[in-house]
């Protein structure tokens, strides 16, 4: 299902590669040794709340926020970011609980599809990192 809410679009995992059918994958400007998914930038990439019943942050879905990806290496090269392009190859299945949303299709944002503790999201990002490969292309 693709939910088009005003100008912001939420893409469910099943539809990810239909929505990005023309791409060979989704790209992230990462570091030479990893795709920079090891830290959570709460309130910047990720929407969160403090859960009084759990001693850690609770990550919440947000249709406008998310961890930045690009739809191509060319997109990453156009924007003023530096690093190495990592690819989530086409047809890879996102770990459960993750999805993409976007305002502009060239800038997909990785988000949670349901609330989860920060430690769970970190584990899922680690899982996602293992699905990604380094292109060795510098941006």
């Amino acid at each position, binding site marked *: 299902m693709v939910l088009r809410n005003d*100008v912001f679009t939420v893409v469910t995992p099943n539809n990810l590669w239909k929505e990005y059918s023309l791409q060979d994958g989704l790209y992230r*400007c990462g570091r*030479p040794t990893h795709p920079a998914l090891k830290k959570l930038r709460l309130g910047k990439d990720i929407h969160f709340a403090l859960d009084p019943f759990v001693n850690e942050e609770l990550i919440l879905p947000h249709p406008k926020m998310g961890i930045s990806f690009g739809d191509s290496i060319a*997109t990453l090269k156009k*924007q003023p970011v*530096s690093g190495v392009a990592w690819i989530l190859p086409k047809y890879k299945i996102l770990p459960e609980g993750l999805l993409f949303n976007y*305002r502009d299709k*060239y800038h997909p944002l990785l988000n949670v599809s349901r609330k989860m503790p920060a430690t769970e999201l970190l584990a899922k990002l680690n899982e996602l990192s293992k699905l990604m490969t380094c292109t060795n292309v510098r941006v």
Partner: protein
Amino acid sequence: MTKEYFLPPAFFNEIEVFAKKEGLIEVLNVTNKHTNGTIFLEPWECKILLNIAKFWRLKAELNFPFWDAEHPHYNPEHEEAFFDAQEETWGKIAMTFPETPDH
């Protein structure tokens, strides 16, 4: 033509602190337009925010000049600090606003 964008308010707060410190009135005029992160901008206003991202990137390059693994004086500590700065400060701004009109 005006277009809607979203940048988490935390970034606007950081830009405003910087713009006030440096007396960048036109930057403040742009950031004052956001409501909870949602902002409607002309292309020239996007360029102002992109220029902040570029300025911060340049500052990080000056602070950590040996960040690049291909630099003859490559320093892993510089690399770590440079990427931390990118991911924490200008990376999201740089990806949110289009560098070229065709985006």
